[in-house]
């Protein structure tokens, strides 16, 4: 037999490769770099590789090909947009991560051990968070462009494994942080097992691991529908777990709360983009013609997710948990875009992902600023009167909340409008109604927080807003600015998405 060397389109793979390269360099620095300059150089490498990756992406933005890498990576407009989104979000999150204050000096050390204490005193910090971030980013970049099941699975693990670790890196309340890591890991592994099982059945059904092949055999109708059914079901479990759709959501509140806030922001924003990117691609490309099989189930899940997320969020006392549940609700809204299964649905979803991701990073960025002597304060009751303490920060946070609630003149409103109209256009009236109702419920708790911040008097318990570092400031400023601009002049972005968003088959 002959062996044909693989043909790789390096230009199109460049973004991922650059990020991976950066990650590897990071690892080396962590191993051999002088401790004093470690943090600086790590930060530099990370930012540099992200920027470079973005540049590389921009260079090839108009290309598209089925086999960027032997048919297992597709490269197209949608991919570019999603990767771009992920890179921007990643960059902004890195600015938050750069605030070392939040991270344990030595993850390996036992909480409260002498080891930990001295590493803090001597400021012997380990900075593995940066390479981990880059690895995760690389996985996220790969996830939405993978066009075969192997790559899908590998990318999933590639983005998940670093996140499991990062969740455990919090400096304060380390027990919680570690717990969240454990939960995230076990459940993540559990769900990826489902995904893999699904992969197996899809392969069994279609005798192919590429989306194209699966689509072909679905249209062909050959093959055992039971396998298809199982395949779709199990794969959905794996993917829906990542986006935190009910009933696969249970991990997200705990993890969001336990993980270091900067990581939470990164996770909440970037993972959603990547995972939804993958979902969109696989459902739009591979499963499109089996619509009649999965759509009803997905509609149900979407509705349950919206309502559940909104309702439970009402009673939350912790700002990070509250945001977690709101992100569950938003997962429900985003599923509406998947269900639409139309061009407008795709455009809407991508816009929504961008808008929501940006706002999320910003919101969590603000959360990192509210602290007392023992670190961040996430108990909502202690947030009361924040508007008096530091009007600006409170206003910005309120603005993000309004964006989440989808009030006009924020990006959230445009996103909500476009995604629901797309869903309704393809006849999902139920989605529209459920969406409207749950938005009403959601408004309830966003407003509750605003009331807390502005209309309640401050409690004197040492809660204060720290002066943000330059980088954090940048993130918050940029994100809020984007959120506002997208609310007022969304046309450019929408046009751009409209013109370039498509899935290559």
């Amino acid at each position, binding site marked *: 037999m002959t062996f044909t060397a693989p043909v790789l389109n390096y230009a199109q793979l460049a973004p991922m490769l650059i990020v991976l390269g950066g990650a590897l360099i990071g690892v080396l620095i962590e191993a051999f770099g002088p401790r004093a300059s470690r943090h600086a150089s790590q930060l530099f490498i990370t930012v540099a590789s992200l920027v470079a990756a973005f540049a590389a992406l921009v260079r090839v933005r108009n290309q598209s090909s089925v086999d960027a890498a032997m048919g297992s990576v597709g490269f197209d407009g949608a991919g570019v947009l999603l990767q771009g989104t992920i890179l921007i979000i990643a960059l902004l999150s890195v600015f938050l991560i750069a605030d070392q204050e939040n991270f344990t000096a030595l993850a390996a050390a036992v909480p409260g051990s002498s080891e930990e204490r001295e590493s803090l005193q001597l400021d012997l910090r380990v900075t593995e968070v940066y390479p981990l971030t880059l690895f995760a980013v690389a996985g996220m970049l790969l996830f939405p462009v993978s066009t075969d099941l192997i790559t899908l699975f590998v990318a999933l693990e590639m983005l998940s494994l670093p996140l499991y670790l990062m969740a455990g890196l919090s400096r304060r309340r380390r027990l919680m942080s570690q717990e969240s890591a454990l939960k995230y890991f076990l459940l993540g592994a559990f769900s990826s097992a489902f995904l893999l099982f699904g992969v197996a059945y899809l392969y069994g059904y279609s005798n192919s691991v590429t989306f194209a092949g699966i689509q072909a055999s679905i249209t062909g109708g050959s093959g055992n529908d039971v396998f298809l059914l199982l395949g779709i079901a199990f794969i959905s479990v794996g993917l829906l777990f990542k986006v935190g759709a009910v009933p696969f959501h249970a991990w997200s509140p705990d993890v969001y709360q336990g993980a270091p806030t900067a990581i939470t922001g990164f996770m909440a924003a970037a993972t959603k983009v990547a995972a939804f990117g993958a979902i969109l691609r696989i459902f739009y490309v591979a499963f499109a013609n089996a619509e009649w099989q999965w759509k009803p189930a997905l509609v149900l899940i979407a509705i349950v997710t919206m309502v559940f997320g909104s309702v439970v969020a009402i009673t939350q006392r912790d700002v990070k948990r509250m945001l977690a549940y709101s992100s569950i609700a938003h997962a429900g809204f985003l599923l509406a875009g998947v269900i639409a299964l139309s061009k407008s649905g795709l455009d809407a979803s991508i816009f929504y992902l961008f808008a929501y991701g940006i706002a999320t990073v910003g919101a969590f960025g603000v959360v990192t600023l509210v602290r007392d002597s023992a670190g961040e304060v996430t108990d909502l009751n202690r947030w009361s009167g924040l508007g008096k303490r530091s009007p600006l920060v409170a206003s910005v946070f309120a603005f993000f909340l309004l964006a989440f609630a989808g*009030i*006009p003149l924020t990006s959230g409103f445009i996103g909500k409008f476009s995604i629901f109209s797309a869903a309704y256009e393809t006849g999902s009236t139920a989605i*529209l109604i459920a969406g409207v109702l749950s938005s*009403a419920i959601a408004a309830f708790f966003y407003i509750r927080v605003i*009331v807390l911040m502005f209309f309640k008097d401050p409690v004197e318990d040492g809660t204060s807003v720290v002066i943000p570092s330059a980088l954090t400031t940048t993130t918050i400023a940029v994100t809020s600015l984007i959120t506002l601009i997208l609310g007022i002049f969304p046309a450019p972005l*929408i046009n751009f998405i*409209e013109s370039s968003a498509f899935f290559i088959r």
Partner: protein
Amino acid sequence: MNALTSMMLLPLLGSLLVAVIPSDQTLRIKQAALGTTLLVAISGVMAWFKFDSANTSFQFVQIAQWIPSFGINYAVGVDGLALVLILMSVLLAPVVVLAGWNESEGGRWSAKVFYILILVLETMMIGVFAATDVFLFYVFFEAMLIPVYFLIGGYGSGERAAAAVKFLLYSLFGGLLMLASIIGLYVISGTHGGHTFDIGQLSELHKFMSPTTQNLLFLGFFIAFAIKAPVWPLHTWLPDAAAAATPGTSVLLLGVLDKVGTFGMIRFCLTLFPDASKTFTPVILVFAVISILYGAFLAIGARDIKRLIAYTSISHFGFITMGIFAMTTQGHSGATLYMFNHGFSTAALFLVAGWMISRRGSSTIADFGGLQRVTPVMAWSFFIAGMSSLALPGLSSFVSEFLVLVGTYTRYPVAAVIATFGIVLAALYILIPVQKALHGPTTPGNENLPDLNLREKIAIAPVIAVIVALGFYPAPLLNVINPASAHVLEVQGFTDPVPSESAGK
């Protein structure tokens, strides 16, 4: 530059000006705000003179692409209806600023914030009436909630936070229902000649809708407006809000914002869904009549003077709604004129009540007594305002109220007859507070309240002047209103009933 656009930009610029003045220079800030509102008022009056009342199509039209891919435009223009309401808004704004000169003190935040909010609100008030693009209208409709929310919650009294939240949630809920309907319209328009939000093109759509669809979409809009206007039983937010807000805010809330509801009924419910409007007319009339009597009874039973005024407004909005759905020229013109007059009589009532409350330090009617002898000017202002509120002939409200009754009687005699009992109740709910607060012996605590000072006199004088002048000579307004309302009915395919007796004779 387009008259409306400039009118909308002026307050924004004003708010910027206010923003740059240092917070401690309160007087400067107030002067800037007053100056701006006066400028806007002047430009409003100029627009009034430029307006060609003979021409029933929109005037001062400006259309610019906003979000082309959704067919959303920045489209403004006014017909008689909108012009009258805009004029009312811009005339009331300076009065409110001048009358509530010291309202901004004692709030949670500086006077600066107060006037920024007021000015931003003014922009949106103009915009919401001027928008000829449904999406644009919705944006203003929702966005204007936010400044009001902060005005109530930040500068109000008593249960201000709770009232603000109640107001916001109620309105948001209605707004979301409306959003659902708007999405419905958008989708339908997409299937019939391209996506659009242009009110003119959308008014053709009903031909393609099934009755069910049309009814549902109609309800989405109507409920939103019924909450705004407030129509029984969706009114309970109003008394709380009005009682908590500062008098000036209450004037804008009841005088202007609530008009958006009745305005919307004419502009959107009737023009977009004529058949559905016909279907629901009987039900709506019932609710309107209930509002008239219900509001009146609750006003009679009210202990708090601000709540009393709020309840009278519910009664008056019942009249307006009834006039709108009577579908006669008299009813329509009457309703529109009523909106204008109610704006001024409520303004007078609330401003004077506000002065009484701020002097006495209580808003309980029973705490006042014998003011007629202590503070004659203030007492007289309240009395005249009250007389106009009970529609005394010779004052502006009478003309509109009688037109509504006559116009309703010709088509729906029963509704008109029942509604007419409202005028007796009106006498009660005005004369009871007059007797308790102004007449009778001067009760302890009222002996040496100061009478109106020059500023307050200057503020109230024009309002009362308008009330009296329009009572004797409403023609200037009617000439502008009549063509507009005639046009609406013509589009609806309604003609006034001919007198039953002189028919054919």
